[in-house]
């Protein structure tokens, strides 16, 4: 209640989830502190959603320890869920109900009084910019509106922790930015956010701290800036010589940068000063068709840690 910034609200130790022979989450450790925005990153099948479900106390762990606000999810599921707001990946709105009814009935599931909910629903409709749409069927809303309604629903019980599973997947840029703004406001009010995403810009925008998962394990942990510092360079120089000439050019470039990565269509050079390196390369007589100097991003970290091959 009178929480310090350091208070740990979620703690996992050797957390493991197996479905028959398949290990979805493989002995992970992490902690989430009150008020922070905590990200779970990883490719499809990394175990993010499974981890989220275990935290949300709708999936029982196979082994390890998990504590949410000091409670045990196996025996105190409903009590933990009273503290949580959940925004599932596919919204899961009640299609048989109108917009306001979606919020109202969900609030009733928590046992909240009609009187309390009357005001709460109005407040949330406004927050989600859906006041005008209150009488529409949930099904008739646009994708962005449906997602905002799902977030509003997750806030009905005034949760201390809001869990968002890929909150902006499938939204257009406008809708994404509106959503980020709403999430920022919640964070400012002290709501702890737990977010899964595979959009790296989203993780950089929203998350104070994050873990990168792959195949059920944690590959790295830290703030976006820390991770970039540790796993990438300050800048990246991208060069294209033409598909069949990249390999040959790379041979001449490989000692110039901290790290070099040759992709079919381009060469990535990880360096502290991209422009200087580019000048050096041009002076050496190599003439790339196109060149681009950019800041290193979380995406570079992500691809380095989880590889470039497709996860099927």
């Amino acid at each position, binding site marked *: *209640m009178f929480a310090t910034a350091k208070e740990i609200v979620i703690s996992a130790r050797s957390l493991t989830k197996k*479905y028959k022979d398949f290990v979805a989450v493989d002995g992970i450790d992490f902690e989430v502190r009150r008020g922070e925005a905590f990200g779970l990153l990883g490719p499809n099948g990394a175990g993010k959603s499974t981890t989220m479900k275990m935290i*949300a106390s*709708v*999936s*029982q762990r196979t082994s390890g320890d998990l504590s949410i606000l000091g409670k045990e999810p*196996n*025996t*105190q*599921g*409903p*009590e933990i*869920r*009273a*503290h949580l707001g*959940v925004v*599932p990946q*596919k919204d*899961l709105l*009640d*299609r*048989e*109900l*109108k917009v306001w*009814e979606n919020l*109202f*009935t*969900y609030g*009733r*599931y*928590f*046992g*909240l*009084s009609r009187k*309390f909910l009357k005001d709460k629903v109005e*407040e*949330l409709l406004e*927050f989600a910019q859906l006041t005008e749409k209150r009488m529409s*069927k949930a099904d008739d809303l646009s994708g962005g509106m449906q997602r905002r309604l799902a977030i509003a629903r997750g*806030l009905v*019980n*005034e*949760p*201390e922790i809001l869990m968002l599973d890929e909150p902006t997947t499938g939204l257009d840029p406008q809708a994404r930015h509106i959503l980020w703004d709403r999430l920022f*406001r*919640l964070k400012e*009010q*002290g*709501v702890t956010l737990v977010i899964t995403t595979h959009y790296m810009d989203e993780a950089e925008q929203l998350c104070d701290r994050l873990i990168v998962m792959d195949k059920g394990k944690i590959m790295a942990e830290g703030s976006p800036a820390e991770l970039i510092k540790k796993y990438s360079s300050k800048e990246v120089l991208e060069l294209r010589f033409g598909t069949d000439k990249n390999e040959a050019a790379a041979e001449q470039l490989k000692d110039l940068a901290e790290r070099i990565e040759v992709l079919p269509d381009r060469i990535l050079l990880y360096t502290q000063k991209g422009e200087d390196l580019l000048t050096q390369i041009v002076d050496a007589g190599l003439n790339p068709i196109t060149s681009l100097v950019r800041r290193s991003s979380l995406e570079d970290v992500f691809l380095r840690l989880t590889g470039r091959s497709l996860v099927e």
Partner: protein
Amino acid sequence: MITQALVSQAVAIQERRSGKPGQAVYSGRSRTILERGFYAFKSSSWLIVISGFVEPVFYLLAFGFGIGQLIGDLEDGAGNLVSYAAFIAPALLATSAMNGAIYDATWNVFFKMHFGKVYQVMLQSSLGPLDVALGEISWALLRGLSYSLGFMAIVTPIGLVTNLWGLLAIPAATLIAFGFASIGMAITSYLKSFQQMNWITFFLLPMFLFSGTFFPVSVYPEWIQTIVQALPLWQGVELVRSLMLGIIHPGLLGHVLYFLVMIAGGLWFTTVRLKALFMR
């Protein structure tokens, strides 16, 4: 600006249940699921609901008053003669209760389970799987009960309820609807495709025709009688018929017990299945 209390009401409400037995599966709020049912029902098609209600009424008209004219009176089991319409009316009342409950507990539940994802959302809140099971089964029960109330409203004025015991047919119909709703939802929770769902209909029709509905089971050889008597509709028909014809005996408690077991079993399996499906 979103207001944020220091301790949310939802948490305070839930913590009152802390330490109570079954706190992991039950929060004592299945009524909120009934409320959701009412909101959804308001904007659903009334025609489908009414069609389920008129079905037994048509049977009563066609068989009771049509064919009944050819059959004449029947012996009611206690030595009294009753009209054929009075003989089948209780059976059709029991069938009304069954139909209403089954429609909702099978097809509607199947839809909500696999397409509407309604239960998944409920279980995300501080409700437990037993709340959801009890709430949804109660909702299906209400439909069965309203069908039987409607049926009573038709048969009472035309003189087919002859004594005060007949009023107990209403609680009896509630029990029957509860039993069928409970077992119906339990079975549905194990089914995965529309083809499998059709098996329920495939089973219900012969049960309706041969459970002593239109003629006494004494026409069957003994072993078939035993099978029929094990079926829930026969139990329900016997219970309601005895009450409406005023034949009161301790054996009726046996029928009641049958339905209580059916209710408890259905609730238990439904709860287990909701957990297995949505909390794995």
